[in-house]
């Protein structure tokens, strides 16, 4: 019984940390939290009471990775977890499949087209992808550039409303 209560207490503490991390924004797409982005891999309270957080980078060279690490460090310190360890987890690699359904909704509302489809096969990149315009909903859009303002985005333009927009790569 005591063990069960202890387990429940640990689970509650971990949930509180998840909620805390859900308030940490991605520095490049601040409408998403790092939890929406799917880059928090674990929150663990060890038997010794020590907290460990696992973070994974989106792209190998994403400059936001270090900013995210320090934002997480600040958030943890502010809430009494100064001793927490932040670990880098590389495997399994992050892909856009790790975005939560909530993230897809927030991206579209912010004006960034969410990834179309899933990163299921290596040939996925060579299939024709129809990207929906986040502003007018038209499916008549064209790719302007395979790369955009951040490593995770490409640049598109809508042929119906003529607005340019970012597309979150399916990668």
């Amino acid at each position: 019984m005591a063990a069960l209560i202890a387990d429940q207490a640990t689970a509650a503490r971990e949930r509180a940390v998840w909620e805390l991390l859900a308030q940490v924004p991605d520095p490049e797409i601040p409408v998403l939290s790092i939890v929406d982005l799917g880059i928090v891999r674990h929150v663990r309270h060890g038997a010794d009471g020590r907290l460990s957080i696992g973070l994974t980078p989106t792209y190998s060279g994403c400059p936001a990775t270090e900013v995210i690490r320090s934002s997480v460090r600040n958030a943890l310190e502010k809430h009494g977890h100064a001793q927490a360890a932040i670990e880098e987890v590389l495997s399994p690699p992050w892909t856009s499949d790790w975005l939560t359904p909530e993230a897809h909704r927030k991206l579209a509302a912010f004006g960034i087209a969410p990834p179309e489809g899933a990163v299921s096969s290596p040939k996925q990149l060579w299939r024709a992808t129809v990207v929906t315009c986040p502003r007018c909903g038209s499916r008549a859009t064209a790719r302007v550039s395979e790369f955009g303002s951040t490593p995770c985005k490409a640049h598109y333009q809508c042929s119906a409303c003529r607005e340019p927009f970012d597309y979150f790569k399916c990668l």
Partner: protein
Amino acid sequence: MSPAVATAARADRALNEALLRYVLRLGDTSLVLGQRLGEWVGHAPTLEEDLGLANLALDLIGQARLLLTYAGEIEGRERDEDALAYLRDAPEFFNLALAEQPNGDFGCTIVRQWLLDAWQLEIYAGLQESTDSRLAAIAAKALKETRYHYRFSSGWLVRLGDGTAESHERVQRAVDQLWRFTSELFAPDEVDERMASAGIAPSLSTAEVRWSAHMDEDLRAATLKRPAAQPYPWHGKRGVHTEHLGYVLAEMQHLQRTYPGARW
């Protein structure tokens, strides 16, 4: 120490040294190629391609950071990614000689990128199954980025090759000039053989067959001719470089060499 234990310890040390060399080859190839692509920033033919080349560079330097950090740990001499990138001289770099070749025109940069993207594609795909879990994790991460790079470079190869007479002629010239550096990509030495037999790295002969198929398919689509195989006089992965690497390093390392430990 008993003779058997001493032999085992020697074998471990030899394997560790080969692993260090192998990881440096991968990391240095990404770093030098990334640095070369960075030279295009502000100079590419259009804003979109300027962004494209810079993004490729960013991914490659990110991969180099993961690999060089790991190399520093294997080496165990307290050298981190920065010490390895900024404080080694050319003979201590083990990148493929192809990666250090000058940018030339946009077509030449695209050809160099396409040759190396297809190489990385097959090497990283094989490394995903590595018995070295750290390398397998880095490779799985790098592979998906490399697929995107390859789509970009092979797409441009086809557009330039099957474009105007001028673009066709220039990109064919680049293929002809750079092809001689490709034999180094799959020429195994004792490091490669040791890595393959330990299940750490994929067999280069298998990777070569797949790479060669990508080459034929893309060259056909681009209406370009595949040059004949040429002898193999370059040994970048053994630290013997063309004269171009020194200039790349001079620019990349100047600040750290002049102001050791400088940070921003």
